[in-house]
């Protein structure tokens, strides 16, 4: 991977990785640190990383960096970050989206990551399995459970649209 290809990857995928990490961490600075660390690692290994697989490589590195950060700090609490996240990243939106976001943050980190990778980036089960180092069946089961949880949250009487 040349310098130009690397910088192209920055322009193409930095927002996607940042969005994915910020939706999980709900902390902008931490999200930026994770994204920067992911791109730094790809720069170090640019001779080994193929350009076609650079996006997947970035998501993989960023996901594991994020998991490490979550386990280390344990500072992400649903109530705090949910409020801050909504304040900093969202404008007034549709009620459904608000409720869905609430439901999303009630999922575990893994489930949330799976849902985001599927919904935001459109990765297949196999690709998600590679990024998250899970098996395809695990991805499928975790993702379906997450969907059921989200649906259950949506159909709650207080959340009924």
């Amino acid at each position, binding site marked *: 991977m040349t310098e130009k290809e690397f910088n192209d990857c920055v322009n193409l995928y*930095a927002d996607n990785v940042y969005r994915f990490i910020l939706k999980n961490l709900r902390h902008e600075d931490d999200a930026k640190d994770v994204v*920067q660390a992911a791109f730094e690692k790809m720069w170090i290994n640019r001779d080994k990383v193929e350009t076609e697989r650079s996006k997947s490589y970035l998501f993989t590195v960023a996901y594991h960096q994020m998991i490490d950060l979550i386990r280390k700090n344990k500072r992400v609490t649903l109530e705090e970050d949910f409020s801050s996240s909504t304040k900093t990243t969202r404008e007034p939106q549709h009620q459904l989206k608000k409720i869905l976001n609430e439901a999303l943050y009630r999922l575990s980190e893994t489930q949330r990551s799976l849902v985001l990778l599927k*919904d935001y980036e*459109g990765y297949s089960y196999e690709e998600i399995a590679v990024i998250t180092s899970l098996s395809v069946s695990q991805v499928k089961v975790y993702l379906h459970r997450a969907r059921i949880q*989200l649906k259950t949250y*949506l*159909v709650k009487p207080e959340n009924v649209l």
Partner: protein
Amino acid sequence: MNINRNNYEEYFLLYADNELTPTEKKVVEIFLQENVDLKEEFLMIQMTVNSPEKEMKLSDKSFLLKKEPAFISENNYEEIFVLYYDNELSEEQKKQTEKFVTETPKFESEFELIGKAKLESDNSVVYPNKKELYRKEKSGKVIPLVLWRSLAAAVFVGFGLWITVFYFNKNDVHQLATSLNQPAKPVTKEAIKGNKITAENPENTDASIIASTEHKEQENIKEDKPEIKTPVLPEETIKKESIAKTEEKIKDEPAVEKIKTVNPQIELAMNEPVKELPEPIERTGNSLQNNAAVNDNQIDPDISKANYAHTASYISDADQNNDNYVFYDVSTEEFRKSKVGGFLKKVKRIVERTNPIARLLGDEEQIAAK
């Protein structure tokens, strides 16, 4: 794909995850049309699908952008110049270096200065005496040594074979000569002193030993050759001889005196029956011929007839009817062939005789005698 009211949820989820093919999606849609009551649940699952928030993005990505460091710059030009003159750069790197020097004239003098700092070897300095450094591998000499050793071994073995063949050929010649009635030479004093076997000297040590060893074979010999019989001696001579022999044996007198005391009549009596037999005579003569050195100067005419005598032995425990002496029709050569020790002694003697120098000297003496 078999969707029904029991498994529809899985297909609804797969539909939401976009994991179904277009055909499968159509099947799900048909199922929904047939089961309208499940449409609401299908929509709820579809509502769980998140859409990316486009507004959520990095405002400034410059901190992520990277720039390859230049191969040569004002920070590392000195090192590159040294590598250039050490010929450690690729062609492309050399071109970049030269381009850098051309574009930045202030480094040109330093580039040339580093180039001048390179030393050239002075070929005029040579080692004064290379010959003292020359060495030869020792392995070159090992091969001839092995060759010479093998050659020496081959010569030694060949010499041994020649000696053996010569010995047997000589034996045959002797036997032939003896068979042609070459009379055996009588026993002399020297021969007796040298413990040689004679027919008239039964007390001789070698003769006694040989006779004792052959005593066991006596019966077989007699059976094999019934013609050969122990000669019967007259009573008077037997008595005289037996008395004389026993006295000599007790006194242990020298062998020369024993010979002198031997009665010629006894010897004749002993030899007479043997003369009648041609074959034993030949063998006896042969054995005598092979026995010992013969001295012609001290030949006793009576004793010279003993070349037809058989090998004799003295038996101390026999009776007085002259049975103390047992005569064998076995040649000395046969004795020696049967004994390894005797054979070795004979080989030793043959080697001594066939000594080239001694043989040459002997031939000269024979020629001179002729």
